[in-house]
């Protein structure tokens, strides 16, 4: 089993330019910022070279102008490698990793539902957690709307239908 620093070194050697930033805040935690277009390259490196098959989840965050995605991978169940990347909020598109990590399917759908990120190549991006009648183009985890505002909008759209 590799240590946190060995994993980082290996990734820097193989992926070089793909990595923008990396830090180890504590034991068994690694945060790596990558270029968004290199996602597949990095994930296939993790999967093939380091044997990382377990994706714990995908976190989506609204940063204002951009949306940040954090892919939480577990190396040997132990070291949590969090890959982060940003995509523009105006065109929130990223390639799907379902073909490399089949377990990512529901996590991508969840982020799609709640933050409006389009995962290109995902076989089925239908609604997962929001109701079918939820207004189109309204993404609850984006910062534009507070809980109260969301409640008003959804009640209004219910009244119209």
């Amino acid at each position: 089993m590799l240590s946190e620093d060995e994993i980082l070194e290996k990734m820097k050697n193989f992926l070089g330019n793909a990595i923008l930033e990396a830090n180890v805040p504590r034991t068994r935690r690694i945060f790596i910022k990558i270029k968004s277009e290199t996602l597949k390259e990095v994930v296939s490196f993790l999967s093939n070279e380091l044997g990382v098959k377990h994706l714990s989840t995908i976190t989506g965050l609204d940063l204002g102008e951009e949306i940040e995605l954090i892919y939480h991978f577990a190396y040997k169940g132990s070291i949590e490698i969090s890959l982060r990347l940003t995509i523009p909020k105006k065109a929130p598109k990223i390639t799907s990793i379902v073909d490399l990590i089949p377990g990512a399917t529901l996590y991508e759908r969840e982020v799609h539902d709640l933050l409006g990120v389009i995962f290109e190549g995902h076989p089925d991006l239908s609604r997962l957690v929001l109701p079918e009648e939820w207004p189109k183009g309204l993404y609850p985890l984006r910062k534009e709307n507070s809980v109260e505002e969301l409640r008003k909008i959804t009640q209004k759209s219910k009244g119209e239908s």
Partner: protein
Amino acid sequence: MGYGSIVKVPFGPQHPALKEPENFTFEIDGDIIVNVKPRIGYNHRGIEKAMEARTYIQNIYLAERICGICSDAHTTCYCQAIEELLNVEVPSRAKYIRTVIAELERIHSHSLWVGIAAHEIGFDTLFMHLWRDRETVMDILEFVSGNRVHYAMNTIGGVRRDITDEMIPKINSGLNFLEKKIKHYINTISNEPTILKRTVNVGVLKPKDAVELCAVGPTLRASGVKNDVRKDDPYAAYDEVPFNVITNDGCDVFARIIVRCEEMLESIRIIRYALEHMPSGMTRVRVPLVVPPGESVSRVEAPRGELIHYAKSNGTSKPERYKVRSPTLANIPALCKMLMGQHVADIPIVLAGIDPCFACMDRVAIIDLKTGEKKVFNFEVFRRHIQKCYRKH
């Protein structure tokens, strides 16, 4: 196989007895499942968004209410995430108490589940007996925390109640009773033909699929994969307590029952060790209300498997973003895999196999893919329809 047309059978989401409403659309050929589509979210309450609007202290209560069975796992995970942001070290005594509560919760959750599994295969006597004996662990939890379900033991910086020396004999006598009973149940389950017939080679999940589909917890360990957050990424006092990670190579529903039963025995050993070696000292430290900017990833082995929380703070008393991924969501893709090729009659037990969902058989709509005709059947009519399929081949 070969009934001719493939029909779609929606299951759920509403059922008076369902703990968690979920909907599955099954495509069935005769009586064999050929495709499964999950549709979750009927219980989506927007807790992540709600947490952004509340203070860190208020969010302890919200985290506790994410789940009614593994409430302690969520608060442990939440408090750990915030403690990391605050750079606070929890007193060792609090870590031991967290371990004790987590294991008591595991016993209560697993015995609840084994009871439900017995009920799903029509073995209600075992269900009744198990749930009667489960009251022992519920009593211990109430005795220690004051509550049966939402224990409210965790707080940021430690635990809210102490486990005193006077309490230990009563806890131990309850554990002795449970240990005897669980051993008896393992023996019964392993030798009872009606259980074996319904569970062996049912809902098979091969190790390769379990890993690829990112399954977690007992579901993963019953497919022979040795993976446990308590061991791999220790938290609370798990790095100081000796215990075994239970696995089973059966890959079927039976293996899932055995893994959970043996885990209960292991939990009893963990609790005994933790009570015996409990360090003295404080149970909590005071923490500031405002959290400096930062982020943390916290993981816990909940009764159903790996639970992961992500926290991001912005220097105020409320989090910028809080993300929760509970183990059931992680196991849904694996569940769909298990259901493929199964008989309709095995749906409830395979669904229950990942803990905690079970299917709604009371009302189903049958859509003929060729004609697009939709009929709503109740359980009786559906049962007759299935029998007709059986007779045809």
